[in-house]
């Protein structure tokens, strides 16, 4: 790893000012599991590493008056998987967090770090998409919110500007009869990125699918929001045929990268299988049954 200067600002204003001052030479670090690995391989060589470690108020989990779930960017994956509030109000996020890597990564890696890393193989982004999350960012110019499925622009790329820090996410409340599921297909060993992963959330109303969210990981150069699948489910009865037909539509929109976890045709076929399975699990979690 090349040498760098480590800076620990005490406030977010200081952090932003540091980013502006050092420009391209600066990289933010939270848990560090992503950045340190990249620096050790010399893929990234910042002159200055700006730690968010000491910033207060960015690791909270709260419900606001509208029952939106507000999670600070410095919450670790471990917090996400074990917080009673997250588990109750966004079980899909808790489940996806639980599947990330190993316990050691989860104690250090943060929500904010995961989101800006933007590796399409990651587990959190599809869950966040399926939860209609909004990303909150702050820059010297002020604050803004970006819907999560506009946040990822490419392979390891997001809309985050060089002078911006992700401060947290907001997740709107789910309807009462909502169920969700996160499936991570790991055909090799238990510690791996997914060959494909699916986050599904389904709201039932009198036995029909009122609404659905489906998002995939490891299926394209960004996490994939499968709107065509959602459109095919809305208003339908949750029959096996409906799920099969809806899931089949994902085959045309995935664009996976071939690697040792699977070829393109295999990942495509598995996307279809696991969308169908995740929908079935989500419906069961909502108290419904697939007929």
């Amino acid at each position, binding site marked *: *790893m*090349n*040498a*760098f*200067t*480590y800076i*620990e600002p005490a406030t977010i204003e200081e952090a932003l000012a540091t980013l502006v001052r050092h420009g391209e030479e600066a990289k933010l*670090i939270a848990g*560090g*599991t992503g950045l*340190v*690995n990249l*620096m*050790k391989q010399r893929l990234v060589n910042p002159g200055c*590493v700006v*730690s968010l*470690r000491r910033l207060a108020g960015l690791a909270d989990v709260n419900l606001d008056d509208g029952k939106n779930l507000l999670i600070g960017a410095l919450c670790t994956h*471990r917090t996400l998987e074990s917080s009673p509030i997250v588990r109750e109000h966004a079980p899909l996020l808790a489940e996806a967090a639980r599947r990330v*890597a*190993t*316990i*050691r*990564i989860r*104690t*250090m890696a943060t929500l904010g770090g995961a989101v800006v890393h933007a590796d399409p193989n990651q587990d959190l982004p599809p869950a966040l998409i399926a939860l209609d999350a909004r990303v909150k960012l702050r820059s010297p110019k002020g604050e803004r919110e970006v819907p999560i499925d506009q946040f990822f622009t490419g392979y390891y790329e997001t809309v985050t500007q060089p002078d911006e820090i992700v401060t947290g996410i907001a997740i709107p409340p789910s309807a009462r009869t909502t169920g969700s599921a996160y499936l991570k297909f790991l055909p090799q060993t*238990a*510690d791996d990125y997914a060959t494909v992963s699916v986050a599904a959330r389904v709201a039932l109303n009198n036995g029909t699918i009122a609404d659905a969210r489906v998002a995939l990981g490891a299926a394209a150069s960004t996490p994939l929001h499968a709107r065509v699948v959602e459109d095919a489910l809305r208003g339908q009865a949750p029959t096996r045929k409906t799920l099969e037909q809806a899931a089949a539509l994902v085959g045309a929109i995935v664009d996976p990268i071939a690697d040792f976890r699977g070829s393109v045709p295999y990942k495509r076929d598995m996307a279809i299988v696991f969308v169908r399975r995740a929908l079935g699990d989500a419906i069961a979690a909502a108290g419904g049954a697939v007929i």
Partner: protein
Amino acid sequence: MKNIQVRVNGHPVAREIPDHRLLVDFLRYDLGLTGTKEGCSVGVCGACTVLLNGQPVSSCLALAVMADGGEVTTIEGLAEGDRLHPLQQAFIDYGGFQCGVCTPGQIMASKALLDANPHPTPAQIKEWMMGNLCRCTGYYKIIEAIQAAAAEKTEP
């Protein structure tokens, strides 16, 4: 360079280190605590597991400066003089190690497990310990050792 202050195994330590020093190198070479091992260097194998502020972390991915003001527990900090920690004794009695190089990491990770969940089921043990690779034992006896240590802890 940074001056950091860390409590390591209960003892206050103050050192001046380069900003980019990794925690694993700080422990092994600056402090001479070679009980923590480096295996894969990418945070996968778990040989470098230590407790940072009570949480299991990959010390090969942690910057030493991030431990400033905090507490680090390594394998050297578990035994009390001659008295082995129940996990250490269980790993000996149940064959939870062979070559021993992954063992400090295994024991630190299992300590973190029992701290968080004193009575884990075998499934919970496997899920927690999945990140600590072992090439010698095949894991069966590691799981037995952890179960045994957990059971001992409930004895009056």
